[in-house]
């Protein structure tokens, strides 16, 4: 793994999982003979990592942490049957002072999803977590 990589893992894009996810977010594709992964489907591949990110890597207090922003950039389609090579890294981790004077910790993390066999980058997911200051 390269220097700033937190974790690297593989994820198989299974048809049943795509259909289950599409149904959960009410994507019309869930009833298609071959469902298409919805735009936010990569969260399925990163869910276990995100759990460890919050509890282990960042040591955030979940009761004070909110999900601020999430971004998906596509460079190619994710398809059923692909094995994705997933690589997660922390982009930034900073403390800022909010408008009302409270301090916030803002952590930006990204996961890149590449076709394992060709190495072609398909999608980059970027997430911003905001931990508010503990009440004193």
């Amino acid at each position, binding site marked *: 793994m390269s220097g700033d990589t937190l974790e690297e893992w593989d994820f198989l894009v299974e048809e049943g*999982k795509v259909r*289950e*996810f*599409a*149904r*959960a*977010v*009410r*994507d*019309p*594709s869930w*009833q*298609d003979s071959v469902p*298409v992964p*919805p*735009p*936010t489907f990569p*969260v*399925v591949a990163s*869910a*276990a990592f*995100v*759990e460890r990110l919050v509890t282990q890597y960042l040591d955030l207090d*979940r*009761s004070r942490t*909110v*999900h*601020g*922003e*999430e*971004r*998906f*950039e*596509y460079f190619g*389609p994710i398809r059923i049957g692909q094995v994705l090579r997933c690589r997660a890294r922390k982009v930034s981790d900073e403390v800022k002072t909010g408008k009302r004077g409270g301090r916030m910790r803002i952590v930006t993390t990204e996961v890149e999803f590449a076709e394992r066999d060709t190495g072609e980058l398909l999608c980059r997911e970027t997430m911003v977590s905001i931990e508010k200051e503990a009440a004193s």
Partner: protein
Amino acid sequence: MNGPAPEPIVFAPLTRTDLVRYAGASGDFNPLHHDHAFATAAGLHDVMGHGMLSAGLLGSAVTTWFGAGSVKNFTVRFRSPVWPGDRLTATCRFREGDADGTAEVDLLLSRGPDDVVVAGVATVRLDRALAAREQKVGEK
């Protein structure tokens, strides 16, 4: 300008079952989203919808309007939590079109007037709209 904005999509009110279904489908088992006792002990009045469920609904509105596989970029900001019983509406406004057959759209998922829960921006391919189905995603 790329023609008239697509019709708003109204999703059926969220149920606790929807939250559990999303937890299982996504793998996000934060108990705030399904365990009422845990949620109230954390100071919430009820279990809270996953932010990414709201984002997913907005994403489904985009694929309904522009077709499966139309999304090139999709960014969401979480403005307000969502609760069981909320009836959410997705709306879309064209920002600008590019010569390469894509368009930038501003997206909102709202509980009511001036009550935005998720604000988004997407870059979409316009050539997938022909393949878009007429089926409304809000129906079960």
